[in-house]
């Protein structure tokens, strides 16, 4: 158990600056999810914490001690890889006990710890198998087991669930979270799946092109996205963003006028989450519905505004209004309107 501190960490591969100064304070026992699109530098950031990549500049402290120049084995961490990286020539038990064996523990103690971890992960029956004789989900558990037997200070996960089917992913996501909470071990978890980020994180760090766009609790990020990027990345279906203009104390998008809570004048980007739109015969927003996707619990309506911007609304229940090519009027509560600077994308108000 330990705190992890990243202080203005950067990473350069040759001339490419891949991580452009990320700072983060992870509390003891906290579960941090690093989320972002492919290629934004999530794995690179995690691998720098693991010691698998050198840190170009900035300080990394694990448990308060500077760890930049420590070898991976001296950082007291454990990592679960996307492809699990199990040792193919060793049995499940040997895979899990490898780290302990290297640490020089007596055989009996290794066997006991491996058995404990196996029980925790329901792997007891499989201890004598080779990795190639396991299913994807079982391999994932073995990789988890290998990480927990050593009782490290920090867990690092690099997209550990992305090779599993959707159902197993949901189940493992809960199990990982439970296990981490039970063991109280600080965790950094990389994913590109915003649902995983929302459901697992104590706090998440939304990354884009080597920068941390926002660091906060999932609800924070959902309710008050700090940037246009964070706003569109978190939430499903993703937030509608339309061009609007602040003028005469109101917010105009085409013909429509909405209340302007920030009082900002000039061109802005207005973000509206599909699930915050309400059908309202008097509503200021008029949408031409082109396609309806009934999902059972709710219905997604895709279409366009009069301004030409494409627009999506998510309405509860099976919704028939506007089916075909009808017009649908919508309204939105003032606290659900997100305004962003038209150029920088930074949140306004």
């Amino acid at each position: 158990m330990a705190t992890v501190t990243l202080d203005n960490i950067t990473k350069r591969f040759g001339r490419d600056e891949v991580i452009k100064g990320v700072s983060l304070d992870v509390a003891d026992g906290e579960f941090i999810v690093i989320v972002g699109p492919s290629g934004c530098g999530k794995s690179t950031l995690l691998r720098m914490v693991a010691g698998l990549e050198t840190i170009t500049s900035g300080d990394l402290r694990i448990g308060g001690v500077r760890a930049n120049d420590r070898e991976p084995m001296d950082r007291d961490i454990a990592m679960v890889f996307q492809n699990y990286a199990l040792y193919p020539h060793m049995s499940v038990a040997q895979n899990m006990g490898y780290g302990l064996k290297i640490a020089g523990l007596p055989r009996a103690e290794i066997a006991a710890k491996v058995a404990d971890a196996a029980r925790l992960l329901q792997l007891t029956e499989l201890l004598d198998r080779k990795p190639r004789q396991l299913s994807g989900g079982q391999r994932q558990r073995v990789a988890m087991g290998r990480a927990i037997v050593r009782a490290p200070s920090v867990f690092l996960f690099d997209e550990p669930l992305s090779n599993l089917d959707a159902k197993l992913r949901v189940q493992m996501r809960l199990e990982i979270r439970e296990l981490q909470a039970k063991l109280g071990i600080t965790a950094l978890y990389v994913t590109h799946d915003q649902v995983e980020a929302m459901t697992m994180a104590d706090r998440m760090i939304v990354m884009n092109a080597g920068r941390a766009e926002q660091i906060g609790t999932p609800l924070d990020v959902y309710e008050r996205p700090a940037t246009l990027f964070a706003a569109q990345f978190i939430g499903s279906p993703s937030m509608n963003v339309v061009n609007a203009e602040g003028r005469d104390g109101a917010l105009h998008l085409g013909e429509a006028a909405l209340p302007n809570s920030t009082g900002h004048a000039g061109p802005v980007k207005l973000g509206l989450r599909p699930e915050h739109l309400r059908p309202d015969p008097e509503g200021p927003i008029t949408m031409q519905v082109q396609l309806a996707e009934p999902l059972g619990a709710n219905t997604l309506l895709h279409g366009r505004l009069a301004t030409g911007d494409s627009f999506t609304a998510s309405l509860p229940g099976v919704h028939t209004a506007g089916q075909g090519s009808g017009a649908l009027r919508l309204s939105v509560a003032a606290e659900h309107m997100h305004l962003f600077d038209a150029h920088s994308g930074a949140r306004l108000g």
Partner: protein
Amino acid sequence: MEKRVTFKGWLLPLCLIAPQVFISAVFFFYPAGQAIWQSLFIPDPFGLSSRFVGLGNFEYLLGDSYYRASFITTAIFSTLVTLAAMIPALFLAVMADRLVKSAGAYRTLLIWPYAVAPAVAGVLWLFMFNTRVGVVAWYLGQLGYDWNHVLNQNEAMGLVVVASAWGRISYNFLFFLAALQAVPRSIIEAAAIDGARFWRRFFTIVLPLLSPTTFFLLVVNIVYAFFETFGVIHTITSGGPQQATTILVYKVFSDGFVGQDLGSSAAQSVILLLVVGLLTVLQFKYIEKRVHY
């Protein structure tokens, strides 16, 4: 359903395998048959006629202390050549694998010795170690070591082993390097995080994962040491001193072409054929079982 091309009739399939059958027949079955046939005869001293002796040649060979000595020489020689060709190759490959830059240049440089024919390599090493004009022999002399592989049996063995193994290092290096680069990075990284330092990782993770390659190279190098080193031995020591470097293949040659005892020579090649066949079967049957996946 199995997808498989099937031929109707037998003419086309026959034509397709004919070239291979023809080559095998001309270069393997015919000479092998000749050898087996000849091994049953003893020619007279002038080579004008020969007398059928059944298994007499074999009987004689098994009782011949020189022949048994040659067996032991061959075992020592091929073990040493295989080790000397594989261990440095593995070491170089491990070092080259650690390089990020200029690994390609090293690979290119290290492959050159393979382009040198064994007999030429033999001459090369012979010149370096020549007792009168060789650079290395002279240098050893300066250091107070009197190098003379013409008289000293161990030195002769050492020299032919080095000259034989030298070119093979390149070949083995390429295979080892390719195999090393095929080991998934994340497995190595996982081992590093598990606490294993470089050499520990090498012996517990990398080497086991290389075992299919190692096994393949083991077979190939032993067969090389048995057969293809003839040129090296012929140029450097001609089997001497006192038969110290007369391996089985060289004895086939020297008894048959120098000693003109074709019957014994043929019998020796038949035995060699059996030995190599047996070795290969043994290797595949027993060693392969211990090779991981």
